């Protein structure tokens, strides 16, 4: 059986900033348990002496020319904003007002 508890999923959902109902948490806990159990076998096969691969075809020192490229105008950048004011993104309160 998996060691993932409902409290774990609740914590993960908080870290991932996804509000979840009780029913969703319940369902996600059981699904996640099954998936994690099935992928666990990778630990057996991954020997201590095997190096990790993060990218299939590694490239090194990829730099662009140090010249100013295309830049979006404030208007273009704000065109999709859910809320904007005075040429700026309008963000909900950072701190809890209470």
């Amino acid at each position, binding site marked *: 059986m998996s060691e*993932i508890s409902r409290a*774990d*999923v609740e914590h*993960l*959902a908080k*870290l*991932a*900033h*996804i*509000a*979840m109902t009780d029913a*969703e948490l319940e369902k*996600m806990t059981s*699904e*996640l348990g*099954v*998936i*994690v159990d*099935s*992928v*666990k*076998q*990778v*630990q057996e*096969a*991954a*020997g201590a002496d*095997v*190096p*990790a*691969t*993060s*990218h*299939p*075809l590694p*490239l090194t020192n*990829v730099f*662009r*020319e140090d010249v100013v490229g295309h830049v*979006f105008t404030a208007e*273009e*950048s704000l*065109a*999709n*904003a*859910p*809320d904007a004011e005075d040429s700026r*993104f309008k*963000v*909900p*309160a*950072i*701190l*809890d*007002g*209470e």
Partner: protein
Amino acid sequence: MRPMLRTHGSKFRPSWMGSEKKMTTTPAELVRLTAAQMAAKLRAGEITAVELTQAHLDRIAAVDGTINAFLHVSAEEALETAAEVDKIRAAGGTGAQALHPLAGVPIAVKDLIVTKGQPTTAGSKMLQGWMSPYDATVVEKIRAAKLPILGKTNLDEFAMGSSTEHSAYGPTRNPWDTGRIPGGSGGGSAAAVAAFEAPLALGTDTGGSIRQPGAVTGTVGTKPTYGSVSRYGAIAMASSLDQIGPVARTVEDAALLHELIGGHDPKDSTSLPEEVPAFSEHARNHQLTGLRIGIIKQLQGEGYQAGVLARFQEALEALRSAGAEIVEVDCPSFDYALGAYYLIMPSEASSNLARYDGVRYGTRVLPEEGPLTIERVMGATRAAGFGEEVKRRIILGTYALSAGYYDAYYGSAQKIRTLIQRDFEAAFEQADVLISPTAPTVAFPLGAKLDDPLAMYLNDIATIPANLAGVPGISVPGGLSYDENEQGLPVGIQFLAPAREDARVYHAAGALEKLLQTDAEPLWAQIPELAETAGAASSSVVEGAN
């Protein structure tokens, strides 16, 4: 069998077709040509790009109510591009000579790839109404070559799925059997091409999202070598695995599109600084003598449907008779590929999708009660904007990356990646290309695996190793399966080659495609006639059907 209804009978001729004598190919025949044939007819002046584009728009209007391959159709823009091509060609001279060989051949674009002036949703409510301020590099290339863009195709939300049922805008249906899935995540692109709504399309492949839909719709799809086609403007899912590639009905068409979209792009730091080979020449080279083809021991047998394995064996026989040398290769670490993939992909996705926070773009949802702090707004936005599968993968990825689990899960998976690369290296010492079924099953009924995420994930068991190792792969039709319950549904054959050797998969797949055309007819010519739904553009159906 569905009733056969045609939009354009002799009684009805749309005004754009002009005089009788000019039109030698009917719209129904036009849309069934290959992209290469369309291009040849355009160059010869037998058809115009506007006629060709309109024929596809009419086809979309007639059948997409059933198929739901398109999330957005851009008729006006497509016709403008087509008219431009016709004008340049009519003027002749150097302008006409400079036209790209595929100029005027319409194309559809997976809605994970951003387009200026057309909405991009990634199949998610999170990006509903979002308009990209820039074009993906592949879209820039298509525009520069003047291929009319017909519209954006449906997909599993953020490309997460194997059936296109995870789209927030409803599932796409398989043209071979509209009660079945078209594969995923690129089910829209594959179904559009299979249903003759477009001759070409763009897809993206993170674990099989181009190849598996190709397999179950009887079409061709290539996952190029990682970094050989720019990913700039492809909405990121798992950045070390994602790859844009071509979708078509023939190997040659896929190769032609690959030639157009490939090449180095300074805007993508993972882009390989290399020239694009003439893939289409390799696709037309049907000489198999001496080609060593390796059967992967781990990608057959248990879990694969009998009907799929029967077609696979037939393909092997055909290749052997044509002079190929068939060997068996052992890739023991492939048994761990699915596990490694379902740790690496969600980990990278959970990080990539953190950007959807409802601040700078996309949906913003306010919590129904309580204070409107940014944390709570984010929580409500992501709860409402993401579907179930996306949430599942974000939570799984967050778990795999969290303190205390990172080494055990993400770290181990990265080690498996190394082992899989080593397996490929050893296999390619024995064989020039590797072969396997593309997917373990044919298209399954809609809804069959929706409640069982693990069963859904198994669809990609044969396609995932290529993404983990960055090597190229192609799916080519291998005939129809005749199982107990699955009658006459397409089976895909996959070829894999070493990194940077994409030309080899076009060679092998092109040769097999030719070998299997026993009646000089490609597999997709057998796609059942689709009932054309009544709509504004197909009023003749209503009249004709009385």
